[in-house]
């Protein structure tokens, strides 16, 4: 945004026009609010101001406010974002700031999306760590330089915010698709030498709705607030699956 435009649209101490989606699973629409604008104001600050001062029944989710918990993701001007780390200044355009519940998920009420299917898909992709050793065994010594560990490390900082899931056009077109977050999680576990469910997880992520549904648009990478690249993780799963097929399941 140019400096001039920024001064025109963002005047700390004055007001900000906001539209917030209100409704439930049966439908709803945008309601307009006028919010005092402040320096360094985040989109979550705007939603909180509305709930505390204008609309006490407004429903939304947040917890940490510092980009760690992944609970405050919403659609902001039509794009999925973590609202606690999104400054109004960064997203304000020449129209009212538009805030809506996450795309590709059912709505419970107002800005709170139903995350059940998102997490069910983590389970379907076998997103749980399956230990290969017990507490009586010595701790596994893993060098951070080991290639598989480096692959896992590159993908592991996911905060489960579902921004990638909301950004994914493949999820929008195919509700059965596991989605970028669940597959990214599966990739980190496939890259973990301590895990003991490699073959079962590979079956889970190679089945219908799995990694082969990805069209590599890379919207997940574009929007991931933690700058992860789920498309690269999904390509990794496709490779594992193809090589496993070619080697009769012996490759790992």
């Amino acid at each position, binding site marked *: 945004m140019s400096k001039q435009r920024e001064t025109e649209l963002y005047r700390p101490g004055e007001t900000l026009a906001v539209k917030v989606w209100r409704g439930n699973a049966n439908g709803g629409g945008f309601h307009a609010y006028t919010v005092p604008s402040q320096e360094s104001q985040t989109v979550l600050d705007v939603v909180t101001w509305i709930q505390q001062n204008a609309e006490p029944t407004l429903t939304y989710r947040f917890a940490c406010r510092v980009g760690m918990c992944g609970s405050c993701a919403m659609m902001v001007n039509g*794009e999925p974002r973590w609202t606690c780390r999104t400054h109004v200044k960064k997203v304000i355009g020449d129209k009212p700031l538009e805030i809506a519940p996450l*795309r590709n998920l059912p709505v419970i009420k107002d800005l709170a999306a139903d995350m059940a299917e998102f997490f069910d898909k983590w389970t379907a992709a076998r997103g749980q760590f399956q230990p290969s050793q017990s507490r009586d065994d010595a701790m596994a010594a893993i060098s951070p330089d080991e290639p598989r560990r480096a692959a896992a490390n590159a993908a592991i900082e996911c905060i489960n915010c579902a921004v990638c899931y909301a950004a994914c056009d493949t999820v929008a077109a195919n509700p059965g698709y596991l989605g970028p977050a669940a597959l990214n999680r599966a990739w980190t576990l496939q890259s973990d030498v301590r895990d003991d469910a490699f073959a079962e997880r590979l079956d889970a992520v190679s089945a219908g709705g799995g990694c082969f549904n990805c069209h*590599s*648009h890379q*919207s997940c990478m574009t929007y991931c607030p933690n700058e992860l690249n789920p498309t690269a993780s999904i390509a990794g799963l496709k490779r594992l699956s193809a090589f496993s097929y070619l080697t009769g399941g012996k490759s790992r």
Partner: protein
Amino acid sequence: MSGSHRRDGLRIASMVHRISGLALALFLPLHFYTLGLALNDAAELDTFLRWTDNPLVKIAEAGLVGLLSLHLFGGLRLLALEFLPWSPRQKLYAALAASASVFVSLGFFLSAV
């Protein structure tokens, strides 16, 4: 979604790959029909081949060659994406695939006229 993600280069590359594939699939029956004429109706084939000397048909053929090379180079890009270690240069590869297709299509047109 606001739709801005649909203007992303890689989203466009994915759509170009699909649409070129569908367009080629639509062309194939006509292609096989013409090949069939060589076996069944030589006179009709000659008439058809004379018609293809029309410059407008040459332009359309260059478009077809363009679709074919877009689908070929786009397919190679996807194979590399899915089978080689990940590279962050996906947009560069998509742009190279598009450039190579333009080169092939123009090359065909220049040699045909």
